[in-house]
């Protein structure tokens, strides 16, 4: 059983595999997102207090979750890449960053838009908001460092180290609402309880799953580009391009 894993850890065999996997994630992502958005924006009732504006939740929360998960995933792949010196995993880390940054930005943006009608302000410097902003800066730092180094292998190793150092921020973001009393609300949904009507919660989950699938699809796509770029001199890439012609 254990042969397959090592086989697919090589970029050459992962490239076609990733290509085959992308539709399996992309198509459900689109379907779920459409279902979730229709349900969330048109079918579900308004909130008893916030009225219509609460519908931002269906974008805000999945985006916020993904921004944190993706950073952790980046750090995870970076560590694997460093310990086992595996090229593929450091490429995974690199490929994750832009998606994470976009979700992080989306969470901030939708949060700020949502803050105006609910709190009465776009922005306050509370712990949750501040740490989330720091997360965005760390994504930027990661990408800037990666872009500033020409040698791809060195770029991957250096930015991987940065991702690991920065990963300490993620738990702080998540628990900030518990550790400090913030203006941002506490968790509505935790593994043990839900303070949200079941219909709303399930649509939020649908959107969250869509975001996961989307992230995986996009990351696979990026990883394929990354592989091509880094292995452009390998024999199998040359074969690939002659096949295409």
């Amino acid at each position, binding site marked *: 059983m254990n042969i397959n894993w090592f086989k697919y850890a090589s970029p050459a065999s992962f490239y076609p595999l990733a290509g085959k996997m992308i539709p399996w994630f992309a198509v459900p992502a689109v379907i779920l997102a459409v279902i979730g958005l229709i349900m969330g924006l048109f079918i579900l009732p308004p909130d008893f207090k916030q009225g219509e504006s609460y519908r931002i939740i269906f974008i805000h929360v999945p985006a916020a979750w993904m921004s944190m998960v993706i950073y952790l995933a980046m750090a995870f792949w970076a560590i694997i890449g460093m310990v086992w010196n595996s090229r593929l995993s450091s490429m995974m880390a690199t490929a994750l960053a832009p998606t994470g940054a976009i979700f992080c930005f989306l969470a901030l943006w939708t949060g700020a838009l949502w803050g105006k009608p609910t709190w*009465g302000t776009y922005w306050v410097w509370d712990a949750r908001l501040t740490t989330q902003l720091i997360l965005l800066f760390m994504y930027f730092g990661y990408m800037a460092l990666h872009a500033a180094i020409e040698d791809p292998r060195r770029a991957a190793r250096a930015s991987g180290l940065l991702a690991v150092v920065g990963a300490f921020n993620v738990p702080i973001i998540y628990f900030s609402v518990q550790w400090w009393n913030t203006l941002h609300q506490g968790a*509505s949904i935790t593994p043990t309880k839900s303070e949200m009507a079941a219909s709303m919660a399930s649509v939020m989950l649908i959107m969250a799953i869509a975001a996961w699938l989307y992230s995986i699809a996009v990351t696979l796509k990026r990883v394929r580009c990354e592989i091509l770029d880094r292995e452009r001199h390998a024999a199998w890439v040359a074969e690939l391009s002659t096949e295409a012609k």
Partner: protein
Amino acid sequence: MKPRQKRMTIILGGLAGLGIVIALVLNAFQGNLVFFFSPSQIAANEAPEGRSFRLGGLVEEGSLRREDDGLTVHFYVTDTAQRVPVTYTGILPDLFTEGQGVVAQGKLDGSGHFTASEVLAKHDETYMAPEVAEALELAKGEMPASSSLVQ
């Protein structure tokens, strides 16, 4: 030092450091690192004097009073144990109603009166449809989960 001893020293040093870190962090959360102060904390003189800070709690039911200029409002902020009188001149957030959570930035004067320069609504983690909320209210005779802010 032999390599093995060296490794042991490093590991032990690391563990000791980790212990100190955990102890310090735990100690920190005994203290007060807050975004806002509750009326009870103000009553216990924990809030700063003569300096701007944030006051958080619920707008007490039936305490809201508007002046004729239409901009100035008076209300009480409560955490069910204590209450603080608040005055604010300006535009209130849409969600500002009695029974709703607020966070107000401002100063306390000598007589315990809070003059706010900014009022924000604090929303809690409950989301439900209006009909459900009404049904719940009928059943319980109170606003649903309104105490979750106060903790």
